[in-house]
């Protein structure tokens, strides 16, 4: 067995276990796919397995872990873990330490004292399609390219075990297809692979074993796993108002004089009370479009009207009454040092009585009013930002990748919430790669591609988003 885990309990603070009764044996060359609710402890399990939990994060583990022929829990043997393991963290922003792809890959090779590191680094960049961008600033790479860079730097030393934490998070369908393709190649090379994923369907055909982490424990077997596979969440697409909420006419945009155009004389319109999915490849300009609609960026030419007004000309408070933008990274959204402060600000701006607003909050939010919003988990931060959006009551809500990092049950709750907004006559604009948004909740789909925004039918949009991945996971 390449990996043997027998752990009674593990966590960050003694007496408050995140994981319990974890027993796992994984053979060499096996692929284990793990699903589970947001915040269930999937990432903690990976940190336990690599020894990071005890050696770097001051956590505790009661039990034993064997990783090939080393004990990663032992502080002396922990330093040997990188020789056996390559890990890709959920967010590439949290992983890349160097400024260029070539430096990032060389960093690993220099650490592990590989001979001819430059030659090997170039070979791996070529393998992951990044050689032409070897010297580019990593901030200029697309999301898919950054993920490929993380894969390159995690596999360049030929580890026996590859760990992928949410490898498809925030990737467009083409990026997902690439990741699936690389994972297949690594499986064929005989590597042991552990993948945690909220959209496990992508890797199901590659997995030798499946497991879930729920109720603090690891449960292996298909019987536990099925409920985490994607299922139809379809909400009825109700009829919408004929009134226009957003209208763009021959709109062009670029970030600076020397920058390339993001939009060139594009036109589209959105109606009140509809859920509109805006799709398109990473880097095509979805987020930019969301920010223009939200009055945060000004079109270069043409015009964009939000309920008859140019949004970037509106004063902040007036703008907020009309539109609110929720970024992909929820931490950007908060402006107060406590949840209470956030709720108070939202109540005050929307003219609601604070005590009545608090009564309607989710119990978990009420219990943590004094806490800083930044201490919440990723899923909780997302939920809090959506709660604040409800309080503000803005007529147009722009959500940037709202399903990223959420398990299927939270996605279901999110869709129900969107439906409520829609029933209130609000326009919900969802910038997304997630085909579930298109299939299950969207009334209309716009695609951003080639500097234009054009409309797709729901069926065409589903095919547009699914085809690249289906081709690879067949």
């Amino acid at each position: 067995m390449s990996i043997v885990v027998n752990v009674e309990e593990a966590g960050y603070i003694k007496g408050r276990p995140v994981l319990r009764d974890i027993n796992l044996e994984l053979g060499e060359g096996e692929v284990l796919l793990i699903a589970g609710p947001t915040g269930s402890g999937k990432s903690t399990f990976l940190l336990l397995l690599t020894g990071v939990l005890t050696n770097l994060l001051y956590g505790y583990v009661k039990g034993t872990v064997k990783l090939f022929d080393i004990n990663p829990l032992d502080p002396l043997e922990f330093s040997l873990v990188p020789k056996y393991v390559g890990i890709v963290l959920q967010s590439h922003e949290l992983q890349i330490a160097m400024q260029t792809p070539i430096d990032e890959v060389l960093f690993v090779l220099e650490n592990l004292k590989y001979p001819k590191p430059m030659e090997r680094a170039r070979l791996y960049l070529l393998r992951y399609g990044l050689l032409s961008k070897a010297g580019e600033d990593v901030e200029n790479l697309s999301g898919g390219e950054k993920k490929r860079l993380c894969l390159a730097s995690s596999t360049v030393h030929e580890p026996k075990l590859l760990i992928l934490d949410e490898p498809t998070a925030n990737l467009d369908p083409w990026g997902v297809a690439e990741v699936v393709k690389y994972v297949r190649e690594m499986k064929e090379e005989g590597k042991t692979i552990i993948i945690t994923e909220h959209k496990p369907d992508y890797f199901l055909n590659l997995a030798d074993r499946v497991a879930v982490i729920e109720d603090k424990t690891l449960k292996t077997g298909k019987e536990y796993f099925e409920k985490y596979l994607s299922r139809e969440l379809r909400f009825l697409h109700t009829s919408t108002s004929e009134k226009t909420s957003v209208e763009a006419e021959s709109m062009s945009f670029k970030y600076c004089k020397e920058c390339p155009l993001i939009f060139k004389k594009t036109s589209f319109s959105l109606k009140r009370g509809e859920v509109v999915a805006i799709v398109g490849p990473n880097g095509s300009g979805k987020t930019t479009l969301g920010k223009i609609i939200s009055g945060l960026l000004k079109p270069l030419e043409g015009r964009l009207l939000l309920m008859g007004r140019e949004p970037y000309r509106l004063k902040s408070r007036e703008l907020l009454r009309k539109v609110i933008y929720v970024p992909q990274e929820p931490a950007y959204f908060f402006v107060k040092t406590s949840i209470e402060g956030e709720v108070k600000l939202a109540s005050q701006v929307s003219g609601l009585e604070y005590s009545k607003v608090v009564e309607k909050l989710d119990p978990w939010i009420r219990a943590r009013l004094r806490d800083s919003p930044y201490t919440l988990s990723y899923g909780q931060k997302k939920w809090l930002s959506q709660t604040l959006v409800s309080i503000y009551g803005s007529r147009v809500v722009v959500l940037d990748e709202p399903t990223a990092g959420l398990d299927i049950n939270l996605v279901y709750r999110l869709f129900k919430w969107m439906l409520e907004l829609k029933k209130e006559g609000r326009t919900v604009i969802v910038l997304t790669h997630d085909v579930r948004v298109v299939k299950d909740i969207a009334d209309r789909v716009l695609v951003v591609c080639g500097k234009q925004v054009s409309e797709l039918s729901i069926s065409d949009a589903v095919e547009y988003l699914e085809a690249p991945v289906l081709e690879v996971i067949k």
Partner: protein
Amino acid sequence: MRVNPSVLFIYGLSLTIMAFALRELSALAVLALINLTMGVLLGGRKYRSLLLAFAVSLIGVWVNALVFAGGEPLLTVGPLVVRSGAVKGFLEVSLKLSLLLSATLIFSSLTSPRDLLKSLESELGLPKQLSFMVSLSLRLLRIFEKDLAEIQLIRRSRGLRPIPLTPGEWASLISPLLSIGLERGKWVGVAAELRGFSLRKIERTRINLHSADVALLALLVAEIVLALYIHLNPLDVSFK
């Protein structure tokens, strides 16, 4: 222009030390003028948000000086009294901040994290952990720029001023920056450990100086001499 990262580090560190140690306005002003010009020319475009944050922070420094500094009244506008201590305090702190900003701009514009890491650990013999922290700060500075721009945009979406003016607004800008920055720092450290950083072996090498390095070191010596000279022969700058 290629400058040895270790030389840049020495230059940046020396500027920082002088910013903290010097009190003479004239010395600070001369150093700030030279280095801010260099810093803005080299990194002004790349780090626009940093310059903006600096400009806005000067408002805070001025308000703080107005409220807390003593001295002779220089100007009275209604209830507002501008005292000599306020002007002196504002100038001193602003010039010190300018020097720190210049050091950051010069340092971060002329090197990359990996070159810096290698140079500090093998040429200057600094511990690898310290070298990594310093080099990582270069990478984080770029991301910090991105975060700051994003947070300012989102503030408008939340009905607030993109550029904070009051202390409370500053707190609301800095909190997410710190929170995201700390999270990032922690996980980049974890990722580095998992990519064999603790196994990294250092081979000491000698510093190779090129003409740009010599020029920068010469400039540093000149600045130190100038600062010492002004310290020993202070110019009479008063606000009475």
